[in-house]
């Protein structure tokens, strides 16, 4: 993000990808970098919460089932601390996750796994680039 760029290029939105599966995480990171995001990565909920506090990403794309700190709980912490308000969760059981999250006063967007990148990108874009 260099301010010395001649053109007033729109600021690259920041996306934090959180998944304990290295392969999926790195593929997702690569894909979103290709479509113009600054991408941060975290391997579990604790790392994600720390990273969100320091870097304030625009959107967090997070797996639900992770060791140490799960996605739903991490999303709750991030929302409570106002590190970000835009958390997208990924799960194999989206309905169950949505229900679990609603018990904690959250209404996150939950994407069904296996992920379709096109759907995922549409959702993230709509959150990160409002007005696009």
């Amino acid at each position, binding site marked *: 993000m260099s301010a010395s760029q001649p053109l007033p290029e729109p600021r690259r939105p920041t996306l934090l990808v959180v998944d304990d*599966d290295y*392969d*999926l995480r790195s*593929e*997702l990171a*690569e*894909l979103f970098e*290709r*479509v113009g995001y600054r991408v941060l990565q975290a391997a579990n909920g604790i790392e994600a919460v720390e990273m969100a506090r320091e870097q304030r990403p625009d959107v967090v794309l997070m797996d639900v*089932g992770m060791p140490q700190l799960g996605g739903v709980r991490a999303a709750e912490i991030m929302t409570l601390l106002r590190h970000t308000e835009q958390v997208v969760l990924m799960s*194999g*059981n989206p*309905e*169950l996750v949505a*229900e679990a999250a609603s018990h904690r006063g959250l209404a996150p967007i939950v994407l*069904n*796994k*296996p*992920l*379709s*990148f096109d759907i995922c990108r549409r959702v993230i874009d709509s959150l990160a680039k409002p007005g696009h």
Partner: protein
Amino acid sequence: MANAADVVPLPDLLSLAADFTWRAGPDLRVDEISPLDVGCDPAVIQLLRGARLDRLAQRTLYPAQGVAISALLNRKAPMRDVALSFSQRDGAVVNFTLTGSPGGDGGYVGVGKVWSGRPFDEQHRGELVELLERAEANRNREMRLREEADVLLASLRALIQPSPLADKCADLFNLFSRLLRFDEALVVRRRTRDELLTVVATDPALTGLRWPLGEVIDAALMGEALVVADLAATREWPDFPDIIRERFRTALVAPLTIGSEAAMLVALHRTPGYFEPSQLALMQRLSLIATQAFQVDEQKNVLINTAKLATLGELMTVIAHEISQPLSVIAMAVKNAKLAIETENERNNSVGTAEQAIVISKLDRIHDQALRAGEIIGAIRTLAHPDRRTLGLRPVSVIEIMDNIRHLTEGSLRNRGIALYCHAPSYCRPLRANPVSLQQVFLNLVVNARDAIADAAKSRNEPTRGEIHISVYDDGTSDRIQVEVSDTGGGIPPDVMNRIFDAFFTLKEVGSGTGLGLSICRTLMIDMGGSISARNESAGAVFRLEIPAYVEEAPVGAP
């Protein structure tokens, strides 16, 4: 009589109703004797008058008591109920009992009672022997009963142990043979919709015997016990197999339930009229015992099934997660590869080589297939998780659901030579439903139809061939949309029609059906505010779903 009573003062001891009074001198010679009522045998009066009691006593059949009478002479003790008996010359027997107390002059005063009949000893011995015999017989009988009860209990215990049907029936027959005499006994259960099969018989030659459907069997399956007095004489029972009619003359038939399936218990005998209507009650009890015995097994199966389902559900969730993760990675990696090539081409400002175009199309195919595999996994997982059904209702396109069903079942239908046809009006309103639940209902009905067609073909020994139709009817005005799923599988037996939606009821062979499918369907349909019903048509079963149509809610403030 009052005269005599005055003359002879009555003794204190009056343990007997007196027929006569007597008085004896010190030497026990009967000085006076007077009858008190007409019941007194004149022969006794004649005999005792002037007789010596102690001598008489010597001739009694109780010599010990006779001696005791002599001994009384010295002690002057009261005589209590001394029984004497003697035969008259003509062979008649006279018995009498004397009771007396010492009189003032050293003699005795007392009353007597006359008995008739056999001499005491014989009479008593006879009675005793009879009593002993009876006691002995009772003891034997009691022991036999006890043994019998032990055996019955053991049989019952064996019966309530879960065990294979054949073992269970053997135990059952064993128990029955103790309660009811028969030559052979059979358990007959439904094999297919229109044929019954002897599954177990006391005579192995009768096992596997096929029974046509008929009035007797219908009656038995509907819960009526009946006795067929003569199999040869009556023409009205043609539905007994010929082998049975040749070998046996009379039959007792009682309904039986194996699990939730109607079956019957048949006892056979060679003698015409051997079984009587009075034995029906017993037979009915027996079939009740049998039903209970089979229920134990069924309950065990229910438990196993439930456990299996739970495990299956968990297993599917784990598998779905484990597989969807790598599938996601594949889809993403492929997408990355494709984007990489496209970026490269953009940078070079070219459309890329022909080979690159091929690579990109292959990558697209890999991507789509990975996502499709994911969808299949999602559908399977949905089926394994009935809990999802309580989630929200939204507009659902019935066409979309039918397409999904076609994708999910096309492989297994094609393998069996079954065609699936979907009919829907060109315009159909959306349904108000949970898409996942509705898809599960459709899938269940199609899979049931498929299995019914396959079973029907198997029982006719023909290759499977059939059609399943899903027809959507929307009249555009009512608040419900109808969907019918029909098959060519021969239909549902009428006697189980009202039980098919019960949990754990299945017509499929043991192990191939959980008996939960239709039960789940009904629950799902009711949850969604719809309904499900079944009927038979000439070709097979028709399941009718009624699903509420989706009505857009009027915006707030609209007129």
